[in-house]
């Protein structure tokens, strides 16, 4: 598009250069950028739903006894909160939205390997989401099993578990197909000169993630089918009365769901690895180690699922093996953290919104990850398992980690695709609220857990009341920050200042093309001649 130079307020780019507009041009588009945005909108929508449910949970826990809902509703609340956050927000979150938007451009491709399959994945996501939502209002009502669907309870409860589980099954296939697409794309569609040593770390992380999606997700798919078989056919595969073993369900569930936590965090780590060098104007420290550790996490992460089952009655031998491997899998994460911090050393650091989110990611992820070590050790996990300590742990890594990385990515990349940017001040104020509120909320919950307050508890003993109140106040501070950040972002992208091709001074390919990118991404075939973090010759913004 030659019109990119003669820019009026903002060039059209992929938003209009094909001449197609209207809903149909979006939901039937095979353009990776449009699909990426479809995912971005849906994922953000479900994030907001999940947040509202989370806030309701916190309000209920503000004081002992009944505050706003009854016990059964509370159980449905945290179940739906967990299911929405895990399967509808965080797993597709970064890979399907920002991965789709950015990854093909980063490797110099015009699209992913299978554009139509890509669109199909989004449709599966939409259908799966719809089925999950339908389950809330039909049959016996919203599922009340917790997001882990443990048998025998999930096989017995009268709520609409079968439909919800079926929805998650569909979502699993959406995730698998995205993985298939990304692996093929990264193998086949790299531009000339884009060798594996020049792959941006975000793309590296997506590559590792995609493998986990392909190899682990089918296990949850079949497990969920078995839950339905248990409920509908009375198959008895997990029913101790009929020779089944409920512990086997937990094995199958975690064979997927532990690797799934790396589906959640690896792309986030990729985002951070791309942002920190740009805002320090320094090459990333230890590129090869960071890339290799992504693969290492993906591989070793498939071998530690048993650490969720220390109290289940699993054999002590298994506890020993899984505990050992859990500690091993922490090492590649440690390597990443040390390399990120070292990248800052002797750089030229500018604390704009993406960087603030990125740096707070490092901190919050470290807190979450280090608390993971307490959970990984057999002796200490026994005490804090199934308490709010675990809830704190996973919110630190999932929300403080992936959630903050999601916002870092939004502030970093979205101006490129919308051609306009948000205001810096409100972004920073919003970030500050989020950061403070987040720690007040979840640090407190971890302390509660150490004092022995179990999770999934509607009601609790009076001695836990003061800290619970503090945590609830934290959730309000966090929510305030979220509102500020989101409003500012949406307003800015709609009507903010136009941005140029390269607002941050990035060296990866997405910053070398027009803003917003044209449908074809590149004019002609790009040829890559330098690494992703080589800032020589990149103009400082």
């Amino acid at each position: 598009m030659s019109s990119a130079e003669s820019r009026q307020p903002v060039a059209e780019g992929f938003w209009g250069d094909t001449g197609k507009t209207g809903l149909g041009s979006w939901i039937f588009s095979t353009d990776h950028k449009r699909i990426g945005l479809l995912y971005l909108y849906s994922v953000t929508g479900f994030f907001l739903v999940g947040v509202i449910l989370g806030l309701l949970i916190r309000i209920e826990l503000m004081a002992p006894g009944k505050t706003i809902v009854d016990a059964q509703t509370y159980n449905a609340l945290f179940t739906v909160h967990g299911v929405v956050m895990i399967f509808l927000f965080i797993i597709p979150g970064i890979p399907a939205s920002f991965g789709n938007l950015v990854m093909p451009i980063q490797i110099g491709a015009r699209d992913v390997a299978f554009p139509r399959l890509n669109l199909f994945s989004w449709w599966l996501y939409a259908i799966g989401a719809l089925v999950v939502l339908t389950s809330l209002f039909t049959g016996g009502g919203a599922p009340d099993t917790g997001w882990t669907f443990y048998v025998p309870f999930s096989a017995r409860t009268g709520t609409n578990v079968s439909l919800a589980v079926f929805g998650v099954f569909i979502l699993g296939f959406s995730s698998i197909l995205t993985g298939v697409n990304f692996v093929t794309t990264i193998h086949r569609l790299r531009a000339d000169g884009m060798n594996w040593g020049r792959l941006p770390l975000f793309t590296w992380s997506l590559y590792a993630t995609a493998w986990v999606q392909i190899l682990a997700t089918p296990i949850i798919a079949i497990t969920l089918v078995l839950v339905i078989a248990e409920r509908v056919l009375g198959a008895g595969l997990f029913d101790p009365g009929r020779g089944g073993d409920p512990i086997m369900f937990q094995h199958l569930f975690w064979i997927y769901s532990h690797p799934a936590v790396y589906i959640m965090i690896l792309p986030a780590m990729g985002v951070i690895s791309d942002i920190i060098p740009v805002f320090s104007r320094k090459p990333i420290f230890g590129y090869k180690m960071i890339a290799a550790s992504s693969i290492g996490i993906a591989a070793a992460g498939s071998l530690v699922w048993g650490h969720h089952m220390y109290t289940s009655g699993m054999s002590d031998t298994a506890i020993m093996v899984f505990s050992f491997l859990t500690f091993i899998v922490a090492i590649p994460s440690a390597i990443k953290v040390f390399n990120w911090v070292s990248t800052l050393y002797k750089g030229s650091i500018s604390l704009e919104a993406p960087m603030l989110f990125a740096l707070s990611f490092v901190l919050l992820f470290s807190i979450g990850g280090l608390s993971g070590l307490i959970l990984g050790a057999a002796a200490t996990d026994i005490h804090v398992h199934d308490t709010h300590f675990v809830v704190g742990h996973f919110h630190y890594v999932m929300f403080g980690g992936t959630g903050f990385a999601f916002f870092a990515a939004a502030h970093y990349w979205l101006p490129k695709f919308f051609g306009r940017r948000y205001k810096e001040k409100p972004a920073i104020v919003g970030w500050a609220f989020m950061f403070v509120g987040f720690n007040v909320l979840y640090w407190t919950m971890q302390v509660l857990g150490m004092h022995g307050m179990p999770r999934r508890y509607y009601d609790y003993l009076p001695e836990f009341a003061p800290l619970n109140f503090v945590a609830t106040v934290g959730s309000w501070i966090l929510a305030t920050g979220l509102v500020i950040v989101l409003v500012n972002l949406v307003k800015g992208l709609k009507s903010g200042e136009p941005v140029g091709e390269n607002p941050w001074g990035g060296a990866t390919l997405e910053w070398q093309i027009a803003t917003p990118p044209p449908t074809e991404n590149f004019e002609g075939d790009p040829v890559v001649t330098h690494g992703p973090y080589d800032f020589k010759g990149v103009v400082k913004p």
Partner: protein
Amino acid sequence: MEKHLMTTTEAIDPVFMFILGSCLVLLIGITAAMVLFVVRYHRSRAPEPTSQVDGSLWLEVVWTAFPTLLVLGMFYYGWSSYLTLRDVPPNALQVTAVGRMWSWNFLYQNGKNSPKLYVPVGKPVQVALESKDVLHGFYVPAFRVKRDVVPGMKNHVWFVAPKPGSYDIFCSQYCGTSHSAMIATIEAVPAEQFEAWLKETKATGAQHPALALLEKHGCLGCHSLDGSQKVGPTFQGIWGRKTDVKTAGKEHEIVVDEAYLKRSIVEPNADVVEHFPPVMPAFAGVLTEEEIRLIIDYFKTSAGGAKLDGAKLAREKGCLACHSLDGSKGVGPSFKAIFGTKVKVVRNGKPEMATVDETYLKESILKPSAAVVDGFPPVMPVEDDLSPDEVSALVQFIKELK
């Protein structure tokens, strides 16, 4: 206490201190480095980067090796201390904890059961864990022990209460509507007091000499006293019971009386109760006339005469976890003055009115999901191990609650 026995708390807490401490040190280190770099190399102070170094082999080696050693230490310490939790001291007191939706019950070896877990101070206690329905978790925060209660699986925990006092037991594994109400208490009391409690509250009938006989001759191996189904018919409420028996291949109904009982003991295969195998050994010559008298008297008075205690059943079977006795709303409707009222229920998906009478109550106990009272969740578990007598006792109990 002869020798100091390491408590579970003493085994776990040092590991906590070690891992938590190392983590805090690391966290503070990383935070300090980040803040330092961000301040020192902020663009306002460092307009251009002063280094373009993009890696260092020896640094990578250091920060791979150092965490590796540290986590190996954590692993080993964590694992070896965990073994303390698994290593039950010899001579531990044996108790069984039975978890059901949504209550606990504790069984002692002498047959005594109690909704509170009484234990002697300073003596190790091994708790065998048994679930009647779904997963539960036996969690005592004060002793740092937790173990899932899995149907069909033999799990256990052990602990020792160092000081007299009450300690909370939580259900840690999510188990449905009233999961958070599934709380019980450990009462740790001095050893002598515990012994006294255990004896004094020993099942009332145990003093009866006939019971000793029934135990001694193995009768209780096949006949229960509590209505549960075993190889032979239960002794519970046997006196005056009507049953079908087969005499010389022919069926007919009898009423259990003295003559019948006597014959059944001396010559068991003369009349065999329907649906039971004819496997009972004859006790002619084994039991004296005197002893048989004693047993029959016992059946007349205690086992048969003493009615099942509905109130006790309601507590033991966990009904009271959801149904209050004082009119307050729980997960299910309160039992108070419920008999005779009219309630709106949902049957087969359709609302209708029902009168709470005996039939209705019986159905609600045996098939809870058939008719669910409007406004309450359909979560009541099916109690499939209730005997007909127990159901009647429960109905009677509810009927009498004014």
